[in-house]
């Protein structure tokens, strides 16, 4: 290696053999926007549908006991809260707002965002599963009152089974996402430290 200009020459020898057609990029970009819109629409639609269903249930099914009303309301609030939060998080990541910042600032913003997300995720997932479990049991009280003992035992056992499944299978699965998020924050922090050393 005679001098460092040789490095530049060697560097520039590396070219992609094929440049993807520009339509591939624009089609994917338009598709991404479409997907975001669909996700946001679906999420908003889900919130509206759940609320509508709960109001319908409260009014038409003639539930008289307060426990049923409270139970259904808690379940609905849990689902709505989960959808709103996950939707807003999705939105933050998909908007790519920091992508044109300088890399040091970009890393700061990403770390800040991921830290917020981590905290939010931990709390929201727990609230969501507690709300579903409590709400379901409260709603079951009135539903099972007129049933035979066997039916009552079966209803509660099935509900308890579902809650156990949600708590011990679904919740840890959601929490795994959180652990990978924590890994990402640590890795970003590590790179950020390299930039700080260079400042």
């Amino acid at each position, binding site marked *: *290696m005679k001098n*460092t200009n040789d*490095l*530049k020459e*060697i*560097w*520039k*020898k*590396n*070219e*992609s053999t094929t*440049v*993807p057609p*520009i339509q*591939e*990029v*624009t089609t*994917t*970009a338009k598709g*991404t*926007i479409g997907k975001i819109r669909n996700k946001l629409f679906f999420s908003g639609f889900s919130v509206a549908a759940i609320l509508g269903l709960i109001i319908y249930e409260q009014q038409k099914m003639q539930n008289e006991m307060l426990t049923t009303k409270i139970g259904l309301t808690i379940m609905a609030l849990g689902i709505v809260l989960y959808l709103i939060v996950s939707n807003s998080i999705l939105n933050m990541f998909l908007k*790519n707002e*920091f*992508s*044109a*910042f*300088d*890399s*040091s*600032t*970009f*890393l700061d913003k*990403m770390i800040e965002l991921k830290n917020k997300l981590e905290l939010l995720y931990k709390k929201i997932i727990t609230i969501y599963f507690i709300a579903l479990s409590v709400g379901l049991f409260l709603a079951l009280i009135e539903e099972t009152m007129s049933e035979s003992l066997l039916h009552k035992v079966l209803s509660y056992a099935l509900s308890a089974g579902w809650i156990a499944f949600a708590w011990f299978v679904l919740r840890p699965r959601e929490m795994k996402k959180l652990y990978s998020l924590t*890994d*990402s924050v640590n*890795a*970003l922090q590590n*790179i950020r430290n*390299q*930039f700080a050393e*260079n*400042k």
Partner: protein
Amino acid sequence: MNFEEIYKQYYQRVYRLCMGYLNDKDWAKDVAQETFITIWQQLGKFKNESVIGTWIFRIASNQCLRQIEKEKRMPKGQMPKEQEDKTSNSIEAKTAFLYKCISELPESERLIISLELEDINQSEIASILGLSEANVRVKIHRIKGKLSEKFNMCEEWMQN
């Protein structure tokens, strides 16, 4: 400058930056594509406050940094398979060796040297990465020294 012109003028340069950071052809192509998708989406927001090249390389650098989320795919320092068997002093072998050496550097240094080799001036590199110009200059000097040393060792080894 419209998107088509940007794409034609910058695709290979962005691809090389991604290759310098990742040293994996397919992955570099994916990240280059993600970069141009972001450019397409954000082009309307570009306000001529900086040079368009600086803006493009900021997006590309940040897109590379985001790959930390896919860390498990990172083939740090691996030679592409087709290059591994080549023991000749060919330009392809040298190119593969250079990219391998760069991919073994810490992330920030990979970006600094890739931008420098792409002929971007040091004040622009500082602006892309958010570092001081003096530090960029020192870093480039050190990294080039390291790379030249590795190349000399490699050339000696090939001659023996």
